């Protein structure tokens, strides 16, 4: 059993079990309340699933792509929860969970997953038809571009059905992690997928105050 968290867009939390599926899920698409709702969502999911924290085998976390602040809240929570129960964190690319949700809904064609990166940019990833284990096969991405830049960035754009993700389901993300694990699939790296450098400007020489 896993606790699954994704805050790459809104906030989504789930408790999942490989055999029994999604046992509980809480989500909001609000992109400004991550730190506020995350604790209660975890608590409510465990309660509804009637699962003790100590019964979980790991915490699955969506590593983005996603805007800085919200994405980080989920990763911080996942790390801390895993530390609290002495179990590992398993990291998943958030777009993979969107592609996996498409597969779970019976749609098996190649997809282009697009999500809002703010500042008039989008995150995108492409997926081929699923592999033999029914897992999404990422072809390109995740990457960042202006919306009108997709045509240049995506190879054979017209072969993909576009899926605009307005949320990432932690239930799907958790089930993906549960499925990846026995098949020995590689999880994501520990670096959050911000895909953007921090906004900073190097200190310039002080400006004159006298004319």
């Amino acid at each position, binding site marked *: 059993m896993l606790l699954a968290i994704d805050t790459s867009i809104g906030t989504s939390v789930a408790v999942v079990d490989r055999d029994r599926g999604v046992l509980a899920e809480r989500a909001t698409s609000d992109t400004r309340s991550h*730190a506020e709702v995350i604790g209660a969502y975890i608590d409510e999911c465990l309660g509804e699933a009637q699962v003790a924290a100590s019964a979980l085998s790991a915490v699955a976390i969506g590593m983005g792509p996603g805007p800085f602040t919200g994405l980080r809240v989920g990763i911080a929570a996942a790390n801390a929860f*895993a530390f609290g129960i002495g179990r590992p964190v398993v990291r998943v690319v958030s777009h993979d969970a969107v592609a996996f949700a498409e597969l779970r809904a019976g749609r098996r064609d190649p997809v282009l997953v697009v999500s809002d990166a703010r500042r008039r940019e989008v995150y995108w990833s492409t997926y081929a038809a699923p592999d033999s284990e029914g897992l999404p096969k990422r072809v390109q991405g995740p990457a960042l571009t202006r919306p009108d830049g997709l045509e240049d960035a995506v190879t054979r754009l017209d072969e993909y059905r576009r899926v605009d993700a307005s949320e990432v389901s932690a239930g799907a993300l958790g089930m993906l992690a549960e499925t990846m694990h026995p098949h020995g699939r590689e999880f994501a790296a520990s670096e959050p997928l911000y895909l953007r450098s921090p906004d900073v400007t190097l200190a310039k020489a002080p400006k004159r105050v006298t004319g």
Partner: protein
Amino acid sequence: MTEAAPLVLGIETSCDETGVGVVRGTRLLANVIASSMEQHARYGGVVPEVAARAHLEALTPTLTTALDEAGVTLDELDAIAVTSGPGLSGALMVGVGAAKALAVATGKPLYAVNHLVGHVGADVLSTGDDGGAEVEYPTIALLVSGGHTSLLLVRDLISDVELLGETIDDAAGEAFDKVARLLGLPYPGGPQIDAAAASGDPTAIRFPRGLSLPKDMAEHRYDFSFSGLKTAVARWVEQRQDAGEPVPVADVAASFREAVADVLVTKAIAACNDLGVPRLLLGGGVVANARVRALAEQRADAAGIALRIPPLSLCTDNGAMIAALGAQLVAGGRPPSGLGFAADSTLPVTDIQA
């Protein structure tokens, strides 16, 4: 110290220090800090996004080290405390998200506390086995760092804290950073100015004391302003340079430092006298400044005011002070904060617990 004193873990991420502390009642067991200061040096000040990224990386290792140093397990904790504000919002959210998840994972009650009151709470901690001197209230508290410059009246640590005044523009620590840059000294400016000032004459240049004129004192008796001072230093340095004369860095640093220390201490002592409170507590990173400390000691002594300055490691931002305030709230029978509180970058000092 009795065994019944609550064992509390505190998490602090409001600025550029990731702090985790462990206390048992008023006894300090661990105070571990990971600072991202070096990453900010080339930008000349704290970059919020850089600080927040660093918190995320540092948090779990800092938790591990703090528990190890304290020699306790998560299981043994009575509560977890976390800074919920004020501070940099993205940075605060890392600590708040982590603390909530840790509280649910361990089933421990969670206390969301005010960073500024945490600075005051640091004063109850003793580092030895015998317990420190009892802290007496009311006290005036002067909290000065790169992020804040606040003067508080603390009647009771967990129930009655009043904001007397604060900076209306830059924090004092920021003024040190900016003046250091003017003088070609690296970041952070505090220690650099302090070192340069050591051989300078503090009376060489009379820089203005912000909000100290009679008309300002009527409206801003306990408020601070450092932006005019910074501009005055810049103007003075430019005039020298324009005249083709060398800038006497030591004298400028000493005179600037004197202006800051003077206005900080003058207003703090005035608050003690005006309000009949014969106690003054200093907190925040600027306490590291030798002149601020010396001037406070000298004037407090002359005015018959008892001055308290916690060890520097408890004055700069740290998790132990948050744990200490949390432990006071637990001991005072306060209910936990629950899980629904937000990170509040402008949390007023009157909200001791969220």
